[in-house]
């Protein structure tokens, strides 16, 4: 499978900020959830910055949904920033915005 994907993360209080770079597919989605699961007990909010990811397939979306469900069970929330218009439309159709939100910036969540 393609491995054209990188992820970096930072913690700001109870907020996990993940910045992705590349195709969010099975490999990318797995890495996002893996990173999320490392911090799950210490966070209530997650920000996924997709500035450098212009393409997300439905397998990648299924991982994002999994993360949203876990966060919802723990009264947490997922935010997306820097969404490409095509990805934003994709997320809308796949129903991600029923439980997650689009934010203007990372700062607006971690402040």
């Amino acid at each position, binding site marked *: *499978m*393609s491995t*054209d994907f990188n992820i970096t993360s930072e913690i700001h209080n109870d907020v996990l900020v993940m910045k992705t770079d590349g195709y969010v597919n*099975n490999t990318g989605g797995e890495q996002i959830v893996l990173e999320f699961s490392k911090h799950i007990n210490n966070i209530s909010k997650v920000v996924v910055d997709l500035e450098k990811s212009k393409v*997300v*397939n439905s*397998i990648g979306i*299924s991982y994002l949904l999994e993360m949203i469900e876990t966060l919802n069970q723990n009264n947490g929330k997922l935010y997306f920033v820097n969404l490409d218009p*095509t990805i934003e439309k994709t997320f809308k*159709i796949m129903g991600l915005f029923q439980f997650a939100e689009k934010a203007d910036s990372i700062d607006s969540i971690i402040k």
Partner: protein
Amino acid sequence: MKQNPLVEKLSLQAESFQEAFETLIKCNTFGEITKNFYHLLRGNFLVTNILLLHKASVDAEWKLTGTKGDLKKSDLNYLSHKNQLIIKYYKKRKFDASLVLPLSDSSYLGVLIGHKLDGSDFSVFDKISLQILLQVFASAYNSFLNQQKEKKLIFDLNEKVLQLNNLIDTAIELSRFDKQNVLIELAIERIAVITNASSALVTIKNLDNGRVEDQITFPSLIPSENILKNKFMIESYFEFNSMSYRFVLSEKETRKGTTSFSHLDELLLHAITRQVQASIENEFLLKQSLEKERIQKEMSLAAAIQQTIIPKELPKIEGYELAGINIPSREVGGDYYDCIDLGKGVFAIIMADVAGKGISAALLVSTLNAALYSYLEFNIPVTELADKLNRLIYKSSPPDKYITFFIAILNSKTGELKIVNAGHNPGLISRHDGTLIKMEAGGTGLGMLDLGIPYTGENFILNKGDKLFLYTDGIPEAMNKNEEEYSDKRMIDFFMKNANLAPTKYIKSIVADVKAHVGDADQSDDITSLILKRI
């Protein structure tokens, strides 16, 4: 009436069974359900050692679930091999109870219950409670499966809507691009996403030489050879304009790895490929149409320039008859002729042809025309005039442009002709006695070389009855459908046979003869000629 104590005890427990059910149906994963069920069993029976196991099918292996435990291989002997619920109770064994619960998805839950903390055996109440808890587990598990099915159904439906939306959006976006590479990059990115392909490749091959002209991959860093090595691939192909375009999708992704592509994926790939083909064809046709429009505009401009330079009327020369013609071809050439009255009975007779066609040729003729009028003012020798024109045209034209040029300065009173031929077809004189003279003295075409080599000239006398005939290569090189030229020989023969005609009639006749030769073929070059007869 006195109630059965067992029934009474069970009714008191009913609420806790209800709570147990509510706890289990809130779980989002199978692991969570079994973990909660483990705690329910421990709480109900006050047992420390409970092992929960699960196997996906009859033939699958048992795996611990819900909690960690110390499972010995021999422990599995407690579990029944029958596909129905069987609960067994034991005394003085490692476990007090064991059971296998068949689940609705053909998987099985195995339960091994150790000794109660107080050391007592399972009572009738315990046994009934266990039956009820198993029922609660089975119901909660069914609910969990239904939730999963519902989620999958919604996800699949959304995915189909997304595919359709992406297909429409992609088609619209592809039609907007006019650069082939950007178009193909977008197309493979979109089709990879729509079909959940792990990677994609487009190979563009030149069909004339078999060379691979370009390979575009998605993701862009994946080497093309890696994509083609994969197990699951589908492809689509089209040819256009001597190029082939092969689209390959590789490794359809699932959460569990990769799988083969579906028929729907193939249809989607073909749909996107067809859209790319249509866009590339449209781009090509648009470019062709714009180029045609540009050439047409250039040609009409060139024609307009040429027609302003070529004289509408030739001067009257006492004792002579003069006629000339220029019939431009569809691709306007750079032919030029003129007769300029220099006063005192002296006239400059010019015939020229620029190498090349279109606007650049017309502009060069325009330059020649302006320079010629300027230099003729100074009454300089015709060879010096040719030198000056050569230097000017050499400097003001690109290396592949030059002008073949013939000039004759006529003293109409004496009949003296001073000529220079700068690389042009020979001027012809037909003497009254039937002699033919070819005038070739001069040098190279104007603007071809600037080596400082002076042009040479030659003088002739035009006597009464003599005819001077100048022309461009559009006459001898006029071709018919068999690509046969009119030829110098036929032109000279025609000139010699018809030289007695009045110049106006002669011009009409030779044009008619050339056209008769050309027939239905297109006129490939301007037809220009000029004839002067001393009467």
